[in-house]
Each structure stands twice: as structure tokens, then as C-alpha cells.
């Protein structure tokens, strides 16, 4: 037993690695949309776009239209993305200041954002900027993105250290935004958030993982509608 009174189960099969989470999250990204990828696993989605899908990436620091994040640029500090990486200059790219950058976000012009999370609740609340024990954290653009992007996808590991559930009835960590999450992609499951009815629908599990395996690592009752798919 750990501090959260959760039973530690043996995993029935390997969980996906970080790249595997990113690959699955990337599969639902739609060609031609404007997308903002958060740091960590979300940024890795760029490496796994389905064939033929081109996105217009936006980064908070004032860049739109860099297409291939997996091919790094020259390390020019004046050609950076918000994660601190240096992309390549490509035709059709645009630079702008932070006022414009957050007009795009706050104004609802970002189609999809993929973000990491510490906790997600059944009503789609997101907590991803501060661990209470530390007492200090960084918000960056996360609150603006989570509250205002048209679609919010969370890409994260399903549980925290010691198999502590991150998908919970109510977030106990400080919120980033209320009722904002549309979908959660983890190392063992894909879950749709029905925010209106405060329900979580399990769509897919990792290979070798059953409904019960995922449910036992989730602090919210999961529902299934139709066939349960396998993450690929």
C-alpha cells in the first residue's frame, strides 16, 4: 500500500514508452490544422505524424508554420520554439510578438493543443503547473492554451510514481483550467472526456491490457461504448 491507499498491481503487459504515447496522440491530429504542442511527450508528436498530415505549428514565443520539428535548425537563438528548440526556417513561416501570439491562443484560433498533465479530473479539469509540495511552479502559456484552444489533448503517463492515479474524481493539485480536456492519451489507454456529463469513456487500451487493468489504475469509473480498441 502506498500513501494514496492504492493497491499496486503487476502490469499485465509493457506500457507504451513516451514515444509510443506521442505516436498515438499524433494519430488523431488533422491535416491543415493549427496546433500547439507542449513540452515533453506532446512535443514528440511531431515525430510521428501520419503520412500526408501537415500541421501549422504555433509556438508561444511568436512563430507559426514551422513544419518539421524533427529536423532541427542551426541553433540560431533568434529562431527558437517555445520549448527552447531551434527549428528550421521554412517557406510560409511567420514571426510575431507575444501580443499577437496570445491573440491567437486567447481568441480561440488554435485548433488543437497537446499538453502534459499532473492530474485530469472526470469533468476535464486539468492540473499541470504545480506540485503543491514544491510550492512554486511555472504556468507559461499552459493556462491560456488549456482554457482557449478548440481541442485539448493530454499526453501523459497514466499514473505517477508508485502507480498513484493521475486520472481522478477531483484534482487536488492547483488547476490550470476548468473543464477543458477533450481526450487523454496515456501509456496504457485512450480516454474520451464527456465534460458535460462528467464521464470518462475508455476507447482503447495498450496491447495486453484489459478494461480492468486500466480501471484499477484510474480513480474514476470508466465507461465503454461499443468495442474496446487496441492502441497502435
Amino acid at each position, binding site marked *: 500500500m502506498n500513501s494514496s491507499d492504492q493497491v499496486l498491481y503487476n502490469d499485465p503487459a509493457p506500457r507504451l514508452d513516451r514515444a509510443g504515447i506521442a505516436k498515438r496522440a499524433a494519430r488523431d491530429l488533422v491535416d491543415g490544422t493549427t496546433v500547439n504542442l507542449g513540452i515533453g511527450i506532446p512535443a514528440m508528436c511531431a515525430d510521428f505524424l501520419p503520412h500526408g498530415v501537415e500541421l501549422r505549428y504555433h*509556438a*508561444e*514565443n*511568436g*512563430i507559426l508554420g514551422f513544419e518539421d520539428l524533427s529536423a532541427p535548425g542551426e*541553433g*540560431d*537563438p*533568434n*529562431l*527558437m*520554439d*517555445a520549448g*527552447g528548440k531551434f527549428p528550421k526556417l521554412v517557406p510560409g513561416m511567420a*514571426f*510575431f*510578438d*507575444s*501580443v499577437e*501570439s*496570445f491573440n491567437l*491562443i*486567447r481568441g480561440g484560433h488554435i485548433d488543437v493543443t497537446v499538453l502534459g498533465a499532473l492530474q485530469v479530473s472526470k469533468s476535464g*479539469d486539468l492540473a499541470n503547473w504545480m506540485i503543491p509540495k*514544491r510550492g*512554486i*511552479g*511555472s*504556468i*507559461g*502559456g*499552459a*493556462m*491560456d492554451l488549456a*482554457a*482557449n484552444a478548440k481541442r485539448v489533448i493530454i499526453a501523459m503517463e497514466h499514473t505517477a510514481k508508485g502507480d498513484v492515479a493521475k486520472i481522478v474524481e477531483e484534482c487536488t493539485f*492547483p*488547476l*490550470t*483550467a*476548468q473543464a477543458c480536456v477533450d481526450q487523454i492519451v496515456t501509456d496504457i489507454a485512450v480516454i474520451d472526456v464527456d465534460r458535460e456529463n462528467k464521464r470518462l469513456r475508455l476507447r482503447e487500451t495498450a496491447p495486453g491490457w484489459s478494461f480492468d487493468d486500466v480501471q484499477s489504475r484510474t480513480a474514476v469509473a470508466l465507461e465503454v461504448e461499443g468495442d474496446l480498441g487496441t492502441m497502435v
Partner: protein
Amino acid sequence: MDRSRSVSDSGRKDRTICLTVAINKIINSFEGAVADIPSGSSVMIGGFGGAGGQPTRLMLALRDQGATDLTIIGNVAGISKTTGYGWPDHLDPIDQGIFFESGQASKIICSFPVPGTTNPLSDIEKAWREGNAEVDIVPQGTLIERIRSAGAGIPAFYTPTGVGTPVAEGKEHREFDGQTFLLETALHADYALIRAEKADTRGNLQYIGTSRAFNPAMATAARVTIVEVDEIVEPGVIDAERVGTLSTYVDRIVKRAEGDPLP
């Protein structure tokens, strides 16, 4: 140009009419450009975080000048030194943590004060843990809009960002068309230290790439705006179509040395 005006409590540009006709905004040294910044000032630091767009030479000059009890206003403020964020690999990164390492800053207002890791501890987090610095964490979009508003004469605005989070505590909430918004207020400063690629002798600025970030808005929101540039050119060299910050906002211009090894 006469800069004897006192720092007003609100940090607003005062309405004194300046009768000076020919204004020389060019200062010959970084030391000279920040010499009069008094202790207790609020100082905006431009850029995004990382080397690009950061007024690194002005920052180092203010650190060496020694003013204390500073309120620093930045964005991604103090993570480069410990993580290398936004700096080329071969250089030792410099970030806004220098004012906390030196004990000069008593407060920071920013969106991203600390990195994910606490090993090693950043200078801002160290100062905060030791009770030597107040940290005011503001969502990035709210921060830039507060700065923009200050420069644009807007005292406050409603934003959807932050509703239901700790940043909403104590703030006025109001509904528009069924959605809840927060009232946020303008953020002024006494000084803005900013960075541009080029200035003309009038003070029109041209930016390059992703170096814009917080620089153009901060230029409008401070009582005194000081810009660090790589090049100073005659009027007309910066195409009128490409002016990124208007000369009206710029009070002092300092040029970097040729071949400065810092980005």
C-alpha cells in the same frame, strides 16, 4: 535628454511636455545606459526566455550597477542557467536569475520562474525558498496583455484565462454571453530593458526572427525604455514597412561591440 523626472508611484509615463528638439538617444556604454536606475525600481526585461531577444548586456550592466530592491518583470525568467533553455550549447547561459543570485531583486512577476527540475536549484527558487524574494506567477497571455494594456492606456481587461485556478483568487469575475471572465489590470514599469536587431538614430527598431516576444509591448509600458541593439543605422535604412517598435517609445539606444561573443 532630461531624464530627471522622478519615478511615479504608478509607473505611468507622465504628461510632461518635452521641449527638446534634437534628441540624442544613443548612449555609448551599457554602464551609462542603466546608471540612473535607482533601487526600488520595477524593471521589465524583454525577450521570451533564452538568448534570443534578451537584453543580456543591459542585464549584466544593471547587475554590476548594484541597484537593490528591484522588481523584475519577465516571462520565462530563470531557467536557462540550470537547463540551458534557449542557449547554444557551447555558452554558459545567462537569465534573469542573476538579479536574485546577486540579491538585487526582491520580487519577480513572470509566467515561468522555475524549471521542472530542482536539481540544481535555480537562483530564483533559491531566493524564494530562503524568503528573500516574492514570486508572482502570471499566465503568459495575461502577462503580455497586462503589459500591452499599460502601454495602450487600458487600465484593465477581462480574460477567460485562469478562471477556476489559483490566479483567479480575489479577482472580479464577470459573465459575458454565458462565459466567465476575470478582470486583470495593466502592468506598468519604471524601466524596460529590451533587445532589437537594429535601431535607427531616431529609435525606430527592427526585430529579427523570434526575438520579438515581449520586447515590443514592454517598450510601450515603461517610463523609460532602453534598447540593446546589434546595429545603429541612419533613418531610412530600416524600411518604414519593417519598423517593429516606433521611435516614440524608445528613450535610450546602446549598441553592442562588434563580434560580441554573447548571442
